[in-house]
């Protein structure tokens, strides 16, 4: 129908898409900053658990150095998992989630903005704190750069994959356990390559293979996960 294009809005040109992305990004950042307490939760968890390890396992630097790469990665992963349930919860409860899905712009863009904020507020702080906790775990010097890089790439995938689980369980009142069950198996490859990259660096091997694999996980997740998240959210809202 030729008349259609005349009164409908102009096509999905990039400025409109970018505006929707920025609007959601700004809104979520504002909300995150106003709920600083919740923001700190995963970080405090990360800090507490890592502090416990020297106390509970052994204070000897040799033992700690052996545990450090795996321990730091496992706890960072659990801290991310802890923050996932809240990702879509409040939007679902106050009705902004359905409004977001009704936006003429593709849900991909808006979902991407939300997950990006989640990464900025959990993945990035966890990555930045990790070297500090590395000192506490007597991580050998060669491990710091790989730890930073692998966490930076890995937490991006963790946020994206985790958001799929969060989207699937958002309409369930008590979806916490289910969320972990859905997400955990998908987190395993990220954990394996992340931790083994750091360990390889400590042992003096090249670690760029592991980083490349983490990078490709992230690239794949950026392309595919928002589609899955948007689909899952549509299902959750349609109840």
């Amino acid at each position, binding site marked *: *129908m030729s*008349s*259609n294009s*005349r*009164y*409908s*809005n102009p096509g*999905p040109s990039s*400025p*409109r*898409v970018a*505006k*929707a992305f*920025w*609007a*959601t990004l*700004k*809104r979520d950042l*504002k*909300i995150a900053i*106003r*709920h600083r307490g919740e923001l700190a939760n995963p970080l405090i968890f990360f800090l507490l658990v890592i502090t416990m390890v020297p106390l509970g396992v052994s204070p000897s630097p040799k033992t700690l150095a052996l545990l450090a790469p795996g321990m730091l990665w496992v706890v960072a992963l659990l801290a991310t998992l802890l923050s996932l349930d809240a990702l879509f919860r*409040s939007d679902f*409860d*106050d*009705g*902004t989630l*359905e*409004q*977001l*899905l*009704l*936006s*003429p*712009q593709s849900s991909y863009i*808006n979902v991407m903005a939300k997950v990006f904020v989640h990464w900025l507020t959990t993945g990035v702080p966890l990555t930045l704190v990790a070297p500090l906790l590395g000192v506490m775990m007597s991580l050998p010097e060669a491990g710091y750069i790989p730890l930073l890089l692998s966490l930076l790439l890995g937490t991006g995938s963790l946020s994206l994959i985790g958001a799929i689980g969060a989207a699937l369980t958002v309409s369930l009142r008590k979806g916490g356990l289910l969320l972990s069950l859905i997400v955990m198996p998908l987190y395993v490859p990220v954990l394996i390559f992340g931790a083994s990259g750091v360990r390889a660096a400590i042992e003096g091997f090249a670690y760029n293979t592991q980083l490349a694999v983490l990078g490709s996980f992230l690239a794949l997740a950026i392309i595919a996960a928002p589609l899955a998240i948007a689909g899952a959210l549509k299902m959750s*809202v*349609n109840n």
Partner: protein
Amino acid sequence: MANSKDQQALAISLDNIACQRDERQLFGGLSVEINAGDVLQLLGPNGAGKTTLLRCLVSLSQPAVGEIRFNGQPLNQNLYAYRSQLLYLGHLAGIKSTLSPAENLRWYAGLEGDDVNLEERIELALKDVGLYGYEDQSCFNLSAGQQRRVALARLYLSKARIWVLDEPLTAIDKAGVAKLERRFAEHSASGGIVILSTHQDLQLDTLKQVDLQDYLPTPEMLLGGL
């Protein structure tokens, strides 16, 4: 405000719609044509399926039977064109209580990709719903009626031409209701569509009413199990 583009026809047609919820059929055989300038009021007792029908109309869910068409095409083939004309106010107000009224409206405008004179228009819209002076307060400091008014301010801000409103008049005082009725009349006069569910009587010339009680499922439909 109205330019020639706004005068183009809009048409939504519901063809033999049946909706069910939790395996229970709510209504069936509903066919309605909604054209530019119509105000359609959905009636029916609680649980008759008004909200379900409105959610189907905005494509948040699908009817069990039948098809909804926008300008002659099924909704899912015409979704971008439809959604860029659509404003939906649901059961939940869609207002973030952490944010101020102005910030909430800014997000909605951003989703529409609309930023011409935005600050000025947000201020006017909030004034129109009687929230002047509250624009920078957090929404959780506002009363239920005021929060509802923040959502209703979108009716003064958005350029969407199809309004689907689920109980927009709950928690709104008498003067507010009268003002909203004038807004509906204005919108329909400029060629827009208003579809709303409310139990209140509306004083509008262009009002069409659909009572879902007239479309109760027939025994054959129930036995056929859809």
